[in-house]
């Protein structure tokens, strides 16, 4: 398993110019992101004035990063609103500090991690990933974060641990969508331990070098780039190592439509719509969806003996 650093996958001149730009124009912002990621700037509700939009890079396939405005204003986050364009407004006052994550279950060293601890204990690095939504649209997002594996190493899963279960904050006052009885709140997601330990799997704390916005899952969220977006659970407060396959919110809502694995796969269709093409946000045409969202080389060994049609 190889690490993809953005310095390796972005053409160097762009990368360097970006670095230069970032270090000059946005040193303050970047510094703030790393040092006090949990204390969201309350005056940053108007995300359109962001300066980073001028320094857009590309992913390892040569596709441009999706603009910061798009990433910050087009969100699937049902806890705030089912309307993707309303989430940003609804999430404005979401309190992301203080914030703690309980890590427990089948581990040797269970612990409660404050956001500040996560940011200082683990080096934050930039990871540029494609994000493919099960609804058929996609983005390229320059995340800041750290591999989940580092946290797992810290708590040391026991021999019996086989899966990782994640849980979003349950707070119907701040997250009014949780009053809607159609879904079983709080949001729960899960990964197999080897998926969770894969180097591509990160806990993200920022985007475009800036602190994560609430609508994007602040202060800390999962990012699993080879799976459909809904697997990348937001605003996490609990991580448990377990021996049974966790049942996610979407599996509960529609078990025949949303499976545990939810790997991006153009050959495995959602029962009601094809997954073979997608629309990249910012583009008009359709593009072919790639096996494992273009990360097949890195992750297909995880599924070598599995029927992906059955384990959808």
């Amino acid at each position, binding site marked *: 398993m190889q690490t993809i650093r953005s310095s390796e996958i972005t053409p160097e001149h762009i990368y360097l110019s970006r670095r230069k730009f970032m270090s000059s124009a946005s040193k303050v912002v970047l510094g703030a992101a790393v040092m006090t990621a949990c204390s969201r700037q309350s005056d940053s509700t108007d995300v359109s004035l962001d300066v980073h939009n001028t320094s857009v890079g590309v992913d390892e396939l040569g596709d441009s990063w999706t603009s910061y405005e798009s990433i910050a204003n087009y969100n699937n986050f049902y806890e705030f609103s089912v309307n993707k364009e309303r989430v940003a407004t609804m999430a404005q006052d979401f309190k992301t500090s203080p914030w703690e994550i309980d890590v427990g279950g089948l581990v040797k060293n269970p612990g409660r991690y404050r956001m500040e601890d996560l940011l200082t204990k683990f080096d934050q690095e930039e990871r540029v990933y494609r994000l493919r939504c099960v609804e058929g649209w996609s983005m390229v997002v320059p995340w800041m974060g750290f591999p989940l594996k580092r946290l797992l190493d810290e708590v040391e899963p026991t021999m019996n641990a086989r899966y990782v279960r994640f849980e979003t904050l349950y707070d119907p006052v701040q997250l009014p969508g949780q009053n809607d009885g159609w879904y079983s709140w709080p949001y729960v997601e899960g990964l197999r331990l080897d998926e969770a330990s894969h180097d591509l799997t990160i806990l993200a704390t920022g985007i475009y070098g800036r602190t994560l916005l609430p609508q994007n899952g602040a202060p800390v969220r999962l990012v699993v780039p080879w799976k459909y977006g809904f697997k990348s659970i937001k605003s996490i407060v609990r991580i448990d190592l377990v021996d049974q396959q966790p049942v996610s919110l979407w599996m509960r809502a*529609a078990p025949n439509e949303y499976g545990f694995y939810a790997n991006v796969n153009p050959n495995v269709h959602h029962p009601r719509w*094809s997954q073979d*093409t997608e*629309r990249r946000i910012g583009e008009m*045409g359709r593009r072919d969806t790639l096996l494992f969202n273009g990360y097949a080389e890195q992750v297909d060994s995880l599924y070598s003996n599995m029927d992906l049609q059955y384990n959808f």
Partner: protein
Amino acid sequence: MYGVINFMSKYIRIVLHICALLPLVMLFYDLGYNNLSVNPIQDITIRTGKPALVLLVLVLSISPMRKWFGLHSLLQFRRSLGLYAFMYASLHLLVFVGLDYGFDIELLRSSVFKKPYVVLGLFAYLTLVPLAVTSTHGWIRRLGKSWKMLHRLVYLTGVLAVAHYIWAVKSDIRQPLIFAAVIFVMLLARVRVFNQVIYLLRERFFTK
């Protein structure tokens, strides 16, 4: 009431045209002022499909309104409502084929059948075409009695359109189910027993 509707007919008609065109005007406004989301094609698809469905429900409601409440004069608005429904449905289809799939026949052929809701929508549209074509006075005259039979096809359109909607949403089908319930009631209006019950109730409670 009958007289009032006839008397106001001209004004009701103006309001009808304004209301029916409003979704389209608002769509163009949002297009022009860049108010759509970053996934504009999806927005346009939804914002042409919804009005088509709402107008279709209104078309279907005319017949029960006449039967149950005696509002026969509503009949004069049905053709306009139907043609507006057809206009939005046509735009909806055109957006799907043209904007979404860029008129790429190969791509359409390979994915349409993997998306059952698209097939349902297409059938719904196909049932609407002959109704729109034969909506003129000339065709009404030419077809005579069979015109009425032909235009019962609109019930099938309604059922297909709602199925198309239910099939297309992600998980939460509450809103499509409301449309389904309304269309179900419209279908009941064609069941004699059900109508007799309504008449009975009406006589008991509302006779002067």
